[in-house]
């Protein structure tokens, strides 16, 4: 019943709905890319530098090696989305763990963890990510690691503050009085209520992750085995004038993807919000 109402509030927002549908479609295309496109995105299967809409089978044209751009875009969606999702998950897990430890136990542990979080917030994140990826060699794993490593403090702080405030809430105290075990309290009482702000933050993390992956690829630090949008922009930089479409399309893809993630996050926040402030009867 509540589910349906959150759901209804979510689909009641056109922007969020469009964003969600876009992401869903993108996800679907990304997952089915191997079946949709012939061959890998690296395969040089047509005339190089084909303009869009000039050859059937390569509707979006090709790059300087004759690689199909449409295939590249779809596989780029795979990279962007998987980096986005994995980095967000890694961020969530780290942030959750650190934030929960700090918020639940408090004291010196809290102080130490929050100082560490501050270090990571102060260091310029992209610079740190660049060095990390350079140190560990570019691969999807290291990119995800680098992004998560610089993004977790925001989540940790949020989780911590939610923990601190929720811990004082009466229903959490009630659960304690009823004898519910601490871990059950965390997972059944506290976390579900921290969900809404968490989701919004995570949507920001995901959008940032997608942009950071693109920036790393732009700096030449992308996974060399992964055809990503940032890579496509970087690879086609010299061709910006001769073949504008080669960098325009991946650029727009990043833009739309980030917008969609952001809209979905915002939509979720609004959908969850009324339940967070119950009873507006006064």
């Amino acid at each position: 019943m509540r589910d349906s109402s959150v759901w209804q509030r979510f689909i009641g927002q056109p922007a969020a709905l469009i964003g969600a549908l876009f992401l869903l479609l993108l996800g679907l295309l990304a997952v089915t890319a191997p079946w949709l496109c012939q061959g890998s995105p690296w395969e040089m299967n047509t005339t190089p530098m084909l303009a869009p809409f000039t050859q059937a089978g390569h509707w979006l044209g090709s790059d300087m090696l004759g690689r199909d751009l449409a295939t590249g875009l779809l596989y780029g969606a795979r990279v962007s989305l998987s980096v986005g999702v994995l980095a967000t998950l890694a961020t969530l897990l780290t942030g959750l763990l650190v934030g929960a430890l700090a918020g639940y136990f408090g004291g010196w542990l809290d102080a130490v963890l929050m100082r560490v979080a501050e270090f990571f917030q102060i260091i310029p994140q992209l610079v740190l990510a660049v060095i990390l990826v350079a140190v560990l060699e570019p691969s999807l794993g290291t990119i995800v690691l680098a992004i998560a490593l610089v993004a977790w403090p925001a989540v940790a702080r949020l989780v911590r503050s939610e923990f601190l405030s929720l811990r004082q809430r009466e229903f959490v105290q009630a659960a304690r009085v009823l004898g519910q075990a601490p871990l059950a309290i965390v997972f059944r009482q506290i976390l579900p209520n921290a969900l809404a702000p968490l989701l919004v933050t995570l949507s920001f993390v995901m959008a940032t992750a997608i942009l950071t992956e693109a920036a790393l690829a732009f700096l030449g630090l992308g996974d060399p085995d992964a055809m990503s949008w940032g890579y496509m922009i970087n690879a086609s930089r010299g061709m910006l004038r001769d073949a504008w479409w080669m960098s325009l399309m991946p650029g727009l893809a990043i833009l739309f993807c980030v917008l969609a993630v952001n809209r979905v996050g915002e939509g979720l926040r609004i959908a969850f919000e009324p339940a967070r402030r119950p009873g507006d009867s006064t």
Partner: protein
Amino acid sequence: MSGVWFLGARLGRALLMILGVLVLSFLLVRLAPGDPAQLMAGEAGVDDAQYIAKLRSEMGLDQPLPQQLLHYLGQVAHLDLGYSYRNQAPVWDLLSERLPATLSLMGSAFVISSLFGVALGALAALSRQRRRWLDGLISNGALLLYGTPPFWLAMLLIVLFSVKLDWLPAFGMQTVAADLSGFAWLGDRLRHLVLPCLSLSFLFLALYVHLTRAATLEALQQEHVYTARAKGLAPSRIVFAHVLRNALLPVVTFAGLQLGQLASGALLIEVVYSWPGIGRLMYDALSQRDYSVLLGGFLLISVLVVGFNLLTDLACRLIDPRIGAEGAAR
């Protein structure tokens, strides 16, 4: 008393933070594969092992890592950032030479993004009731800016404004060998600054708009805004003294936190626009494994960010009397 205490505590924390950043960056940088001595020798066209060994011992790379770290910390404690063998110059000289470029880029981007961001965000929030279209325009515009990869935007801006339209220069921070002075000099600098500054500003502008709008909307809901209206205050007074002032708190806090990210963004922009700033120096230092410069850059940026955080903390304290006051309760 409490003000001095507050400042002291903050300074202590800031120092601790900088120490942490130093240790962290030191370890990180030293983990990177690639040997600076070998690289330098190769660049100098010398490939005898003896010379490489000599370079390594000159740079202190033959010491165990903890000892190198201690040595480095000791150096920094004496305000000595070390020497760049690659550039044959003290690190501080290299950094200070680049500092004005970075400061002018980051400073102008910060001013533009925060001023316009706050103004537009507040405008959007205040228009929400009467002129929904304006709110929509600003919010969605900000969203577009947020989603646009800055490096991509920078590429497009160069092609449009400097190559096609020939309005603005494409690289560097000044016209070299033009011997300008006075206003012409300033104008030349400003013209060079426009594109890099805008490219860097947009993302943060979007964030400021988003944040200010949310904060203003929340401030508008506050009970004391009703009180202010019930007192018969003029709308302008209500907006500035009772809404924006309160909405500014989270914005100021954010401003402190995002400076590090501004420095990150500056790196990309400095590369695309050939802006001779610290970000690029660090990037080059990374590819040359010029550890001392890399660490010095980290340190300098951390000091900047921490210092700026200190300022925003003080600003918050000025805005909000509750912060730092004894027995503060909300």
